[in-house]
């Protein structure tokens, strides 16, 4: 009955929230990567990429998820970045090539 109402009103039960949070925190624990470290990695990637392309840094997403490994079908942590590109800085690339 409760389940029905929750679905009807599209309300997430607290156990589902708990499960989602747990999954995320355990992925980070297993990979030994804290959110702070992830933020540092994100900023470094941002710096490197922004040299060459204009990106929408508000929509930049970087996270650690579980993906099935090719061996044994086990799950392994993977770093996944979703980087929306606005445009490519052509002049920058040309300048760099000229430097080399």
């Amino acid at each position, binding site marked *: 009955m409760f389940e029905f109402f929750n679905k009807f009103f599209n309300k997430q039960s607290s*156990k589902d929230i*708990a*499960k989602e*949070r747990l999954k995320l925190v*355990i992925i980070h624990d*297993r990979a030994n990567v804290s959110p702070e470290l992830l933020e540092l990695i994100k900023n470094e990637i941002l710096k490197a990429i922004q040299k060459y392309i204009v990106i929408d840094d508000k929509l930049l997403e970087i996270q650690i998820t579980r993906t099935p490994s090719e061996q044994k079908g086990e799950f392994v942590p993977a770093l996944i970045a979703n980087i929306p590109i606005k445009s490519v800085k052509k002049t920058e690339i040309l300048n760099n090539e000229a430097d080399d």
Partner: protein
Amino acid sequence: MGEVYVITSGKGGVGKTTTTANVGTYLSILGKRVLLIDADIGLRNLDVVMGLENRIVFDIVDVVEGRCKPKQALIKDKRFDGLYLLPAAQSKDKTAVSPEQMKALCEQLKDDFDFILIDCPAGIEQGFKNAIAGAQKAIVVTTPEVSAVRDADRIIGLLEAYELHNPKLIINRIRFDMVKRGDMMDIDDILEILSIELLGIIPDDEKIIISTNKGEPVVMDEKSRAGQEYRNIARRILGENIPIVSEEENLGFLGRLKRFLGLNNS
């Protein structure tokens, strides 16, 4: 030759000591020779849960420091044949017993018992490493809370690293009414996250507190649902195939009668 189990958890207060006391007591009721070792040195509690606190003369630190022989430190439980307790020291710190000493102690006592159950301190520090050193098998206890499950995951990883493979899980303090409402993770949620084998589930039961107050393990209480589940866990350890019922039993009169007569073994 006895089997050495360590009962462990990441988070404190999830029921390691209660589990050790009850599983051990029921194994002895089933006719096994059982030794309970309290490895929570500095913060002992297995003795009070068992109601044996008044009989401690020597403890585990006295044994490893050679002030007495191992057998002199064992407290025989007068209520149950074949049940013994080796208490922890109250004053020393967690590092008073080294992993090597623990290993040697278990080796030495293994022949005299069918089961040695080690009550591990909470956490992942030296006390944990000392407690698991002599064990061949591990039981991980958790409750259905985010913090307890997360810490259980850490412990499972560490047990693997110390080559204690295939630990079994006990989920303690399940509240079926909350599970039904969707306000508590159910058994499948937890197993999906931890992916280890389930040994049993213990419902939240106020009789645990009553029995701990009295110093009588709850397995002695025929009517307690938690006691029943601890009895089932002990039987599963002995290899009996008892299904794990993950919902509140809605026993009618007939069901209760069957259970009373021992026809319904769930």
